[in-house]
């Protein structure tokens, strides 16, 4: 059988490599299963993959799950400030009742997870460092994700929405003062050329985005036993690789920014607590209001040690 996997990244991105591992392993298993990868939005645009996935027009995708938060509000918890503290915590979340609840939502849309994975990110600003909420006041900023926009607006920042590809020139010309995005975007868009200070994800980080490899459930169920086992075995291998690489990317962004002469700031435990306090008033509150059963889901996520 032929399966089609679509994603938005170039072929040197870690998320492409995760997909490639699954494709290679399945091919090596020789179970008459061929996964064809369509990278760089060559089949579907990034935010337009979930609907065809759930309707079986696309077989697999690697996707920031929060992109589909408009269809399943529960997914907004997978990009919520302060919910995940670091990568090991993220890995524990993947095995928690919270993730079971999220997977139940996916099953409603005929979607299942093959590979779990989180990527982290931080802040950068053109003058001064951003470690605590007070640092954001009055800055024009671009945040990655709705919940972050709500929290940063609560911190007194002004929110400008634009594509990540426009960040560099917007910072250069002064349209933006600060930006919040993933470690890999910070490096690949060469943001270090335009900023004075960078707050990378470290022992404490706010920005974690869940970006799993998903599959259409009916398609999976339609495969034979050997094919399903080959896929699961490949997925397990890819997941271990994903976690290792995610940690590496944070370290890499820290190295690249400091080598470019950018000041590096780290968030302390108190800073993290202050952000979380702010998030409770802003993004958590908004989430609970718009999501049926939202409080319960949020508590489940917060209870993971």
């Amino acid at each position, binding site marked *: 059988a032929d399966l089609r996997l679509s994603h938005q990244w170039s072929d040197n991105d870690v998320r492409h490599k995760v997909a490639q591992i699954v494709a290679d392993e399945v091919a090596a298993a020789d179970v008459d299963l061929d996964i064809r990868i369509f990278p760089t939005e*060559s089949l579907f645009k990034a935010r337009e993959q979930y609907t065809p996935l759930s309707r079986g*027009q696309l077989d697999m995708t690697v996707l920031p799950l929060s992109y589909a938060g408009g269809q399943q509000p529960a997914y907004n918890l997978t990009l919520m400030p302060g919910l995940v503290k670091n990568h090991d915590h993220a890995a524990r979340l993947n095995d928690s009742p919270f993730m079971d609840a999220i997977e139940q939502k996916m099953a409603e849309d005929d979607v299942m997870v093959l590979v779990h994975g989180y990527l982290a990110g931080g802040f950068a600003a053109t003058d001064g460092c951003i470690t605590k909420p007070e640092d954001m006041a009055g800055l024009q900023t671009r945040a990655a994700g709705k919940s972050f926009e709500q929290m940063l607006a609560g911190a007194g920042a002004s929110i400008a929405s634009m594509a990540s590809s426009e960040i560099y020139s917007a910072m250069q010309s002064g349209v933006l003062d600060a930006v919040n995005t993933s470690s890999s975007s910070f490096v690949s*868009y060469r943001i270090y050329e335009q900023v004075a200070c960078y707050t990378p994800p470290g022992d404490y980080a706010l920005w974690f985005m869940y970006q799993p490899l998903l599959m259409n459930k009916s398609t999976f169920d339609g495969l034979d036993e050997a094919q399903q086992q080959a896929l699961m075995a490949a997925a397990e291998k890819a997941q271990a690789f994903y976690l290792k690489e995610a940690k590496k990317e944070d370290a890499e962004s820290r190295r690249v920014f400091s080598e470019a002469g950018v000041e590096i700031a780290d968030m302390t435990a108190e800073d993290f607590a202050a952000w979380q306090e702010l998030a409770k008033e802003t993004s958590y509150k908004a989430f609970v209001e718009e999501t049926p059963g939202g409080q319960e889901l949020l508590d489940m996520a917060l209870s993971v040690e």
Partner: protein
Amino acid sequence: MDPLLLGALVAIFTVVVLFSGVSVALGLLIVSAGFLIVFDGMRSLELMPEILFGKLNNFALLSIPMFIIMGASIASTRAGADLYEALERWLTRVPGGLVISNLGACALFAAMSGSSPATCAAIGKMGIPEMRKRGFPDGVAAGSIAAGGTLGILIPPSVTMIVYGIATETSIGRLFLAGVIPGLLLVALFMAWSLYSTWRSGDAAALTARSYSWRERVEILPRVLPFLAIILGVLYAMYGGIATPSETAAVGALLCLVIAMVIYRLWNPADLWAVLRDSTKESVMILFIIAAAGVFSYMLSSLFITQSIAEWIGTLDVNRWVLMGAINVFLLIAGFFLPPVAVILMAAPILLPIITSAGFDPIWFAVVLTINMEIGLISPPVGLNLYVINGIAPDIKLKTILVGSLPFVGCMVLAIVLLCLFPGLATWLPDLVMGPRI
């Protein structure tokens, strides 16, 4: 079926369908639907409206109607004539000042309009009769305006550059800057040819212009101010930290509409509606082609044709300049028949991986591609600018316009050769202003 064979089949069907006289956008949808049904199953059809909507769901596309409104609102006033007249009064001492004024006015107007026919019409309405009255050969008068008008898509802002930037995910700000120096180079080449051919044809009288008093010269200056205000306003918004390039287009559109209404008294609702109607018509036409080309490229990618062609060319192991030559011939032929936007959208996803893996710069390539499209605008069988000139000056035979334009095609080919020899002509300015490439 082998994807390459399938690709050839798609190419043949696309040509047949487009030549049937169906509109370009619907033709692309028909071809896509046909191949999707046969090779991907009926289910793919379900996706078509979704993809159509998705391709339009892009903030950068906003700038297309905006830049079209800029050109259309100013073109509906006498601003183009003012601009041309002012240049003429000041350049009168220069040999051949009139044709130089016309080409200069085309270049300046191009700096405000994103489309070539608009540039052509705005300057040509005044410029062509004036040149003919003063004894320039019909061919030079018509050809220089037809060619000068094509600068609309090379000198920023440019609708085709926006489309290229979206199709290839390259920075639109950078693409705009890349067109500036090649645009000026083309203006210089056009001027040189016009002067040489006028001199050779023995109409030397045309080269000695009438003289203007200093009073007449100073008098006209205020009438050029609106132009300067618009161009500086847009540049400041774009590179001065106020707005992103896509947002700047809206500033330009508003500025042009306000200036047209306040300074040029474009108050009459019927006239205003005419501007909006024409802008809407052109924008919807272009945006629908963009959406339909999105479905077309989904089909090509889904059937693995795009990827296979790129792989296949990679294995050919030909000299990169032979490759570039072949690509240019392909673009030229496509440009003879199709509007630039359609060519870019159909060709970019296939060509971009090929040219980058051959070591060419995508920003530089955008300029080469745009000049190819400019050639298509003044060459048979369907050069849009030729017909615009035909509309402005109906008593000049289409054949005369065509023959008069041909030497300018030569200038454009020369410019492509120069760009191949000195790629810095395109890349130096964007790198200087925006820093080295990401």
